[in-house]
């Protein structure tokens, strides 16, 4: 990702009040690239403190004056690209203990605690497509390893997550690290990780099926709307800093050997922060012998 593109994304995030991404840091000579990895860990996309352009707080008068003149261009850009994130609207809580327990169990145990998932993954970013074979290894202690292979079996990405944090083990040499920590790892946690330390409650949005909300200590929030005829969610969204950073739809539930309930054979995730779409097709679920 070029410095200019990073700069534009940073301006968009600043203007919308989202947490700053530390891919760039201000200096007297302008923007400089951060060469080190972001501080990593579950919820890292929400742990970075917000700061404005040139490193001043967003409430500082100089920032407000500067940002006012950029708002027009930022919103023009957003309109043209159609890539705006939107604020998360909190819904009214719903008191139904039995339903709450059922939904919570469905989300936390949506995948077997020990298994290997084989997936086909296609990522659309800009006008480019990247297709990979994905393997997700899940262990009973909640840790997981995500591995993606390119053509002829070459390793492209490897992520390791435990209960505390996630790490990028492998990535293509020239690939920027920010979209991985801030984007892809958050996507994997939202889709597959067992919900750890979180507060959960039910909400209802109009006449729609009740939704389960998981609120984490690091500021993240995940909302899962259950399908009418299936234990698995029909759709979900991930929230950070009050903004919806990802939206997910789940399709074509199927029965897989060794699984107690149906699993979605196809998942479509839209990451609004990093502007890519990920299509995941579940090919196989393998349980340990």
């Amino acid at each position, binding site marked *: 990702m070029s410095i200019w593109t990073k700069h534009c994304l940073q301006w968009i995030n600043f203007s919308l009040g989202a947490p700053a991404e530390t891919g760039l840091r201000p200096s007297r000579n302008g923007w400089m690239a951060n060469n080190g990895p972001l501080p990593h860990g579950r919820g890292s996309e929400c742990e970075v403190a917000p700061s404005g352009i040139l490193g001043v707080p967003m409430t500082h008068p100089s920032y407000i004056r500067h940002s006012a003149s950029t708002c027009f261009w930022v919103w023009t850009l957003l309109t043209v690209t159609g890539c705006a994130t939107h604020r998360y609207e909190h819904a009214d809580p719903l008191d139904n203990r039995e339903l709450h327990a059922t939904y919570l169990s469905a989300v936390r145990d949506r995948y077997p605690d020990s298994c*290997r998932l*084989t997936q*086909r993954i*296609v990522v659309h*970013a800009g*006008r*480019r*497509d*990247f*297709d990979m*074979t994905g*393997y997700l*290894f899940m262990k009973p202690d909640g840790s997981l390893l995500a591995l993606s*292979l*390119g*053509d*002829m*079996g*070459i*390793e*492209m990405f490897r992520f390791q997550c435990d209960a505390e944090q996630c790490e990028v083990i*492998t990535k*293509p*040499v020239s690939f920027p690290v920010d979209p991985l920590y801030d984007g892809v790892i958050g996507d994997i946690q939202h889709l597959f990780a067992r919900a750890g330390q979180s507060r959960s409650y039910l909400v209802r949005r109009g006449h729609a099926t009740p939704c389960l909300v998981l609120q984490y200590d690091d500021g993240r929030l995940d909302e899962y709307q259950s399908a009418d005829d299936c234990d698995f969610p029909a759709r979900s969204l991930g929230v950070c800093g009050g903004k919806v950073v990802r939206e997910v739809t789940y399709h074509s539930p199927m029965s897989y050997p060794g699984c107690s309930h149906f699993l979605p054979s196809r998942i479509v995730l839209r990451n609004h922060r990093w502007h890519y779409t990920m299509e995941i*097709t579940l*090919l*196989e679920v393998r349980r340990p012998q």
Partner: protein
Amino acid sequence: MFLQSAVSIAVALLIVPPGQRPAEAANYPSAPIDVRELSPQETQSFLTRVRQKLSSMQTLRADFIQERRMGAFIDTLTAKGTCYFMAPGRIRWELREPYRSALVFSDGKVAKFLYEDDRLRKLNPGGKGVMKRVLQMIALWLHGDFEGTKEFFDLRVLRGSVFILRLEPRHKQMKEIIRAIELTMDADSNHIKKVTIRENRGDQIVITFVHEELNVDLDEALFAVD
């Protein structure tokens, strides 16, 4: 990310004169114990014979079994498919398991296709420039031409009951990804039976070729990029 790909080639039998210094078996994990490394002159002679022999190959079709053996896990990740080649420089690498896809290189262009419910969907892959260079190199290998390879790899040939052509990257970027590519060649049939890509983490990819057919009729449509 595509620099390290490789496919099968056919090679000629080379009779190695007695008295050659045996190679260290530990340096060549694919090699049987009694292997001998060819001298530079023998290697050049060997490669010349390979080129002469393969220049007559017009087409190739071979099924492959691709296994990724992971050092940290007991799991072996397996994929299967078919490789097609048409001289002088067309390649189709078609995957059938765990899902269907095809990577095609033809007339200097690269195309990637996915099969979805038996319908073909064309992708716009990133890294086309790198893919082109890699697939061009593979096409040269299939014609027995290793001269261009020397810019990117140090090349050694081992001879025992099999031949092993070992390619070690010269450039830093590729060295960070792979340690070596080894082509294991059957001394009797002169065919490449196996390609081993050794990654730095200890993982290795082994591509085993079966049911090879040389100079068979291949449909031109296999190499269409549109």
